[in-house]
């Protein structure tokens, strides 16, 4: 109340100065008039009465006192203090700008990471009504009375049974995602699609930007196809025009009229997918896309259930009730026998609780690094303020001696710190807005980070940033303020200019420097460990020659199944005749693609039961085109007899036939007998980054989506040539994506690249900050001791010896920082060891390299101010001081 009233008064005083001054003048004039009238009544002559009344009041003095009272506000600082503070900062603009910028960067990185992590882990989707009543619902398993930690989705029949319970949820919905190829005109893309039930959007309260959301009218068996599209798809492919409603969107070759556009930034509930959904269709439209769809029977972690609790029902009560019911619903033949039902509030259910732990590892590193950067920035600001205070010892001492209260001096220094903090925070906030903009425009393979554009910078984030900046500067401004103002003025004046070298006493500023170096080391080591890990990953042999290989996704959903094989054949032979094409082949998944299917596998006559084996489906000349050597036997050819053959990896060959050649042996896949014709030296069939795993390659079937691998002599124009070839052969074939193998591998490493580039940039920043810290400490130390230096030079001390002395001191200080920093860094790195690839936290090269680098930087930053010594002319220096 009092604070508010004060601020209002100060603002009034500032912006309505003229009116306020006029009021004050009139008020005092009234006083004089009354006083004069009284004096006249007491017998004085009119002019004399007026004269005395004026004298009594002392009008200008009173005005000045009132002005001071009026202009005071926060912390009792007046505008005078602020003006003075600004002048002091401008006077030291070099350091002030550095301090402001470093703090701004610190605030920006903390704000950005805070926004991102909060959006991922703690915020419900935008536009959900009463999100705290909506719960993700999972089934869990117990093994030996221990929570197995797995959060599974429900199969549709189980969900249906649970939905019959009337006393838990008012609405309960089941939804699932899959990839689908959409096309509009010439544009085709493979996007994420979500099957939703009729009351899905009604339950969440999602209001579409345009048209209507999918509702219970749409979700009926045999109902007509309808689709809702994302705001982003609407903008990019339909130009954001209103006539999109009713237009047909082709999904996997089937036409779906568009009925609505989702709100801006609505990315669905789940965030634990590589891509956000672009299209929503009613669950009961599923058979339109795939008449033999098993989606309503299967179950897995990707089948999700949400429910809105009835008023008065608690989470615990709901869990108990549903658990009691699930045992009735259970299918006794089911291998996954759920033991209980668990609920998670919507804000925590956007990432499957099972994966929250894994993801929080990455978030923890991000948070740690951003907090370290903020700390480093704080130390820089602290160091700046301590330095400021130290160079103003004399000024402070004089003011104290002249009777200024200690409170008044602290107030002055705090005002300056606050100005600094406020400026830095404002700039930092702008930085973070800018960062969010940049992140929103990142290339598509950073899709996981698209979300970043979703959580706009909200008022509470502004408050968070402001709080961070102001608290930082307040704390770091308070210490030097107390230190300086507490001095005996006499000592302050005496010692303020000069002082001796020898002082082995460690100043607060040197302590800050050691802390800064410690932080720089921690940051640099973190960055280096990630970079080294990334380097190892890129150097890993993918098992094939990753060079001038073009990968093109083709989608044949619009051509009849029995024509697909003929089309593939025709296209491949067409491609092989093109100039610039060395060879061409086809596979179900791109090399190092991930997500391979598994099929039942056994050795007839040996295995009683079959087991699941990862499989890649490839066309003729696949290994030749991708540059994978076939170590034993041969690869698939065009001959029809090869349809019943199989190629296995070395791991499987060693496992099955350790002492004999696998060639010619018979295996059974999904009930079909196949002969082994070759062995390839790949650790697994999908990904050179993953663990070795036995696997098989079989000839490609007639599936809808495949990847063509085209070995070319040059990438130039080949994508266009390919599109042209396809269009000529069959215009109905869609080409969602064409990319080079380099881009493909790069995409596979995107998370590691983001992690190592983020930590790398931050680490570089930390090193620069500590260099600035070194420079600031030693240059101010040098300035304070100009007299001492001059005296020594005059007495014949060689400049080189003085410089050596200073550099030695810097090395000792930084060495202390490096030692503690290294220890701390190893300690921290062991916490995220699992994220590092073939790098141990105590990596000797990284640690020594960092130590050498930091000390070198520190020495360089110390040598620069040493020029003062070299330039000092003893005679003039001694004279002026």
């Amino acid at each position: 109340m009092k604070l508010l009233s004060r601020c209002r008064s100060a603002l009034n005083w500032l912006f309505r100065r003229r009116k306020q001054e006029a009021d004050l003048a009139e008020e005092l004039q009234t006083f004089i008039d009354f006083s004069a009238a009284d004096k006249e009544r007491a017998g004085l002559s009119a002019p004399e009465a007026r004269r005395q009344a004026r004298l009594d009041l002392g009008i200008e003095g009173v005005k000045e006192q009132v002005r001071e009272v009026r202009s005071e506000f926060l912390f009792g600082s007046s505008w005078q203090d602020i003006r003075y503070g600004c002048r002091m900062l401008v006077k030291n603009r070099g350091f002030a700008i550095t301090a402001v910028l470093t703090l701004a960067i610190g605030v920006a990185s903390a704000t950005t990471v805070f926004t991102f992590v909060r959006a991922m882990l703690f915020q419900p989707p935008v536009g959900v009504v009463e999100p705290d009543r909506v719960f993700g619902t999972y089934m869990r398993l117990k093994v030996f009375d221990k929570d197995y930690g797995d959060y599974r989705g429900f199969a549709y029949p189980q969900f249906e049974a649970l939905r019959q319970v009337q006393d838990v949820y008012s609405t309960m919905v089941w939804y699932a995602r899959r990839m689908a190829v959409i096309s509009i005109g010439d544009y085709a893309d493979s996007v994420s699609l979500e099957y939703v039930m009729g009351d899905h959007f009604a339950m969440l309260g999602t209001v579409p930007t345009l048209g209507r959301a999918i509702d219970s009218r749409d979700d009926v068996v045999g109902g007509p196809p309808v689709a809702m599209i994302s705001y982003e798809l609407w903008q990019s492919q339909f130009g954001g025009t209103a006539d999109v409603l009713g237009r047909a969107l082709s999904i996997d070759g089937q036409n779906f009229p568009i009925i609505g556009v989702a709100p801006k930034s609505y990315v669905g509930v789940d965030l634990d997918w590589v891509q956000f959904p672009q299209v929503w269709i009613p669950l009961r439209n599923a058979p339109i896309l795939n008449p033999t769809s098993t989606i309503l029977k299967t179950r897995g972690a990707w089948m999700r259930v949400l429910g809105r609790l009835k008023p008065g029902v608690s989470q615990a009560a709901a869990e108990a009730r549903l658990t009691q019911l699930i045992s009735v619903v259970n299918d006794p033949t089911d291998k996954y026998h759920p033991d209980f039902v668990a609920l998670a509030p919507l804000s925590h259910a956007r990432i499957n609780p099972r994966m929250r732990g894994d993801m929080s590892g990455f978030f923890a590193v991000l948070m740690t690094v951003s907090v370290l950067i903020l700390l480093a920035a704080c130390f820089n600001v602290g160091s700046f303020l301590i330095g400021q205070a130290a160079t103003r010892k004399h000024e402070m001492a004089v003011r104290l001696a002249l009777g200024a209260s200690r409170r008044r001096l602290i107030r002055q220094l705090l005002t300056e710190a606050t100005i600094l903090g406020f400026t830095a925070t404002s700039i930092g906030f702008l930085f973070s807005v800018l960062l969010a903009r940049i992140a929103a425009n990142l290339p598509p393979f950073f899709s996981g980070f698209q979300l970043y554009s979703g959580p706009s910078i909200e008022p509470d984030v502004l408050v968070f940033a402001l709080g961070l900046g102001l608290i930082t500067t307040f704390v770091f401004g308070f210490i030097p303020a107390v230190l300086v103002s507490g001095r005996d003025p006499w000592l302050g004046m005496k010692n303020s200019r000069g002082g001796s070298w020898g002082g082995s006493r460690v100043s607060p500023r040197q302590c800050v420097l050691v802390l800064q170096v410690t932080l720089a080391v921690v940051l640099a080591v973190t960055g280096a460990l990630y970079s080294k890990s990334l380097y190892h990953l890129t150097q890993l042999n993918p098992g094939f020659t990753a060079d001038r290989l073009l990968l093109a996704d083709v989608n044949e959903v619009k051509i009849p199944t029995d024509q697909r094989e003929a089309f593939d054949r025709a296209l491949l032979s067409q491609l092989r005749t093109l100039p610039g094409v060395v060879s061409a082949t086809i596979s179900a998944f791109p090399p190092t693609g991930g997500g391979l299917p598994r099929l039942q596998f056994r050795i007839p006559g040996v295995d009683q039961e079959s087991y699941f084996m990862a499989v890649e489906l490839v066309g003729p000349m696949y290994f030749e085109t991708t540059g994978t050597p076939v170590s034993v036997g041969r690869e698939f050819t065009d001959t029809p007899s090869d349809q019943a053959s199989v190629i296995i990896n070395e791991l499987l060959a060693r496992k099955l036939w350790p002492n004999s050649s696998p060639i010619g042996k018979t295996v059974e896949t999904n009930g079909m007998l196949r002969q082994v014709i070759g062995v390839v030296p790949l650790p697994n069939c999908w990904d050179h980054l993953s663990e070795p795993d036995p696997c098989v390659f079989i000839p490609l079937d007639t599936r809808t989506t495949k990847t063509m691998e085209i070995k070319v002599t040059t990438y130039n124009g080949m994508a266009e040539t390919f599109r042209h070839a396809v269009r000529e052969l069959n215009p109905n074939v869609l080409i969602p994506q064409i990319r080079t193998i380099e881009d493909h591998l790069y995409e596979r490493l995107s998370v590691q690249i983001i992690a190592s580039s983020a930590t790398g940039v931050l680490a570089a920043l930390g090193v620069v900050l500590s260099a600035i810290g070194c420079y600031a400490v030693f240059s101010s130390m040098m300035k304070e001791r100009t007299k001492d230096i001059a005296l020594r030079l005059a007495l014949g001390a060689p400049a080189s010896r003085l410089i050596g002395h200073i550099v030695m001191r810097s090395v000792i200080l930084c060495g202390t920082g490096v030692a503690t920093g290294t220890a701390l860094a190893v300690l921290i790195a062991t916490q995220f060891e699992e994220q590092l690839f073939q790098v141990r936290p105590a990596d000797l090269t990284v640690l020594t390299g960092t130590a050498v680098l930091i000390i070198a930087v520190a020495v360089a930053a110390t040598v620069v101010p040493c020029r003062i010594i070299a330039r000092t002319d003893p005679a003039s220096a001694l004279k002026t001081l």
Partner: protein
Amino acid sequence: MDRIDVPQGTLELLILTILHRTPLHGYGIAQLLSERTESLFQVNAGSLFPALHRLERDGILAADWRTTDSNRRAKYYRLTAAGKKQLARETERWRRITAAIASVQEAI
């Protein structure tokens, strides 16, 4: 009798007490103070106006311009709700101080 300055720290209490009864302008407050203490207390404008403006700034007093009996415009101060609370606190504080002083004097 000699006139003495208002004892330190009591000016605020005196202003609040006077304004509790009726809104008044600056000169009126000074006059009333002097009349009530039979001219013992003298408050100079150099203390009075900063004090009034400080109280107004902190939301304890509010002010508006009115016309006096002699047809002059003057700035009248009055207590706000916060001012009334403040007066109660200050009065209680003063009562305790005087009681304490009295008990010391009695003891001697």
